């Protein structure tokens, strides 16, 4: 019994500390005294950032309810246009037709680059775009044809729902073929560990995921890094958009503004994207 007597107050204090801690940070101040429900849907690439931001806001102010659903870019644009959600996310810029029909206001808060990667042991660290297209289409089958070892090229791609795959396929491969014999992995993390394990593999990951375990491949002389994406010299990139119908107000505006605060940008960077200045 004696033990519990001091554990209990300690527990209460630590819980209180956990609950109160976020209240000290300045970026979240606008949410004080706010209450209501905010519905978000659309692009799946946005979800990690949205979730983290929502969690921070909801912990600080339990009166606010933020719900986040996926569905894909098309769904996000459609739902926000029809007024079903307050924010519709898209991993592509909505078309002019969509913007005028739904009177959308776009909020681009991050840039996401997608770069080809190989194992660090692989001597082939630069490709032309047409060589890369040939690799993914199965026309170049051996690393020897590119100055590497005499081994078959193992191609890794992502699953159907992947936004990363969508961008890479559109801008990297110009909607060219990816052979059905390619290995399929389920996430940027899984792609990275697969390439880190396979000295004869080639795949692609979100630029934020590139670290020492994999080597980026320079495409037409440009190495995919956060800097080259930022400068615009590396072109396989896209904006991450949050769209609203008309100018946002109230909680919706505060949520979007939060993404541009230092703390919001920190979350965006942590999730491997480049925050928009």
């Amino acid at each position, binding site marked *: 019994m004696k033990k519990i007597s001091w554990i209990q107050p300690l527990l209460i204090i630590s819980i209180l500390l956990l609950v109160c801690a976020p209240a000290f940070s300045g970026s979240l101040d606008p949410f004080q005294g706010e209450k209501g429900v905010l519905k978000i849907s659309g692009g799946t690439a946005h979800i990690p950032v949205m979730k983290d931001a929502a969690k921070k806001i909801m912990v600080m102010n339990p009166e606010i309810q933020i719900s986040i659903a*996926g569905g894909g870019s098309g769904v996000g644009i459609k739902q926000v246009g029809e007024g079903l959600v307050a924010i519709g996310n898209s991993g592509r810029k909505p078309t002019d037709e969509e913007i005028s029909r739904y009177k959308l206001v776009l909020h681009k808060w991050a840039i996401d680059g997608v770069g080809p990667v190989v194992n660090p042991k692989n001597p082939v660290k630069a490709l032309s775009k047409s060589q890369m297209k040939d690799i993914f289409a199965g026309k170049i089958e051996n690393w020897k044809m590119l100055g590497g070892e005499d081994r078959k090229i193992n191609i890794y791609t992502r699953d159907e729902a992947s936004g990363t795959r969508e961008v890479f396929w559109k801008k990297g491969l110009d909607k060219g073929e990816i052979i059905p014999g390619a*290995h399929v992995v389920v996430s940027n993390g899984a792609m990275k560990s697969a390439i880190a394990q*396979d000295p004869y593999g080639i795949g692609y990951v979100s630029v934020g995921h590139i670290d020492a375990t994999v080597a980026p491949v320079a495409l037409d002389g440009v190495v995919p890094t956060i800097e080259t994406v930022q400068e615009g010299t590396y072109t396989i990139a896209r904006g991450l958009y949050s769209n609203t119908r008309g100018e946002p107000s109230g909680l919706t505006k505060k949520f979007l503004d939060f993404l541009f605060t230092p703390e919001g940008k920190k979350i965006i960077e942590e999730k491997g994207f480049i925050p928009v200045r």
Partner: protein
Amino acid sequence: MKKIGERVAERAFFLSALASSLITVAILVFMVFMGLPLMREGGFYQLLVKPWAPYQGAFGIYPMIVGTACISLLGLAVAFPLSLGCSFLITTIAPKPVSRVFRRLIELMTGIPTVIYGFVGIFLLVPFVRELFQDGSGMCVLTAALVLGIMITPTMTLFFCDSFARIPRSYLDAADALGASPVQKLLYVILPSARKGLLNGVILALGRAVGDTLVALMLAGNSVRVPESVLEPARTLTAHIALVIAADYESPEFRSIFSCGVVLYLFTLVVTFLARYLSFAENKKA
């Protein structure tokens, strides 16, 4: 005169039994209903034989059916001799303390989550297979089947052990009295009289192999082409469902995974009924 408590309990048990069997049926109805638009378009049969090429509008699951069959049957081929050896060791050959330790160890193995097997497979077996055959990435049918085989071995072994233990003591004594060697005892006494148990073990392990998702998802490479050799990557039905489930709800890709579900469901159903029928036929004969 039944007591009121007894009647309440009876009713409660009946209701829970009814609920669980209704849920089983409801799942099938749900999957068929959700998959109906796509099945109606080209016919269920078309889905079973066509390749998977979403950009060309083909949502066939034939490569996945082949992948599932290859990986689980090969896994079974790995697991069967292993399990047979293990169970024979535990029940017959090894001295009591050793066999007890072995049995505990195998019971422990049944509880290891499949993701651990997959994880170990990625870091140990995948590079090994890649370098051994100097071909492909190491993520292939063979690797997945080996790990799957090791994964289902404990379940199978325990089933075999139990069926060996059910053999009447007098049979074994008779064999001993005739001067049979351990091998002769295994071949002529134990295996024939434990046939039913062996079959049940194999069928249940096959069910587990077909139903397992993570091992294949992590180790088989998940490519959508029909594998031409055991060193090529392949995708199983379960891995396919896991990969496509995040797609847009309205898309035909998403619809098509319900046909995968139906195929898996029907397969399990067939296997279960086969096991029931075989043991029924065996009982009748005896």
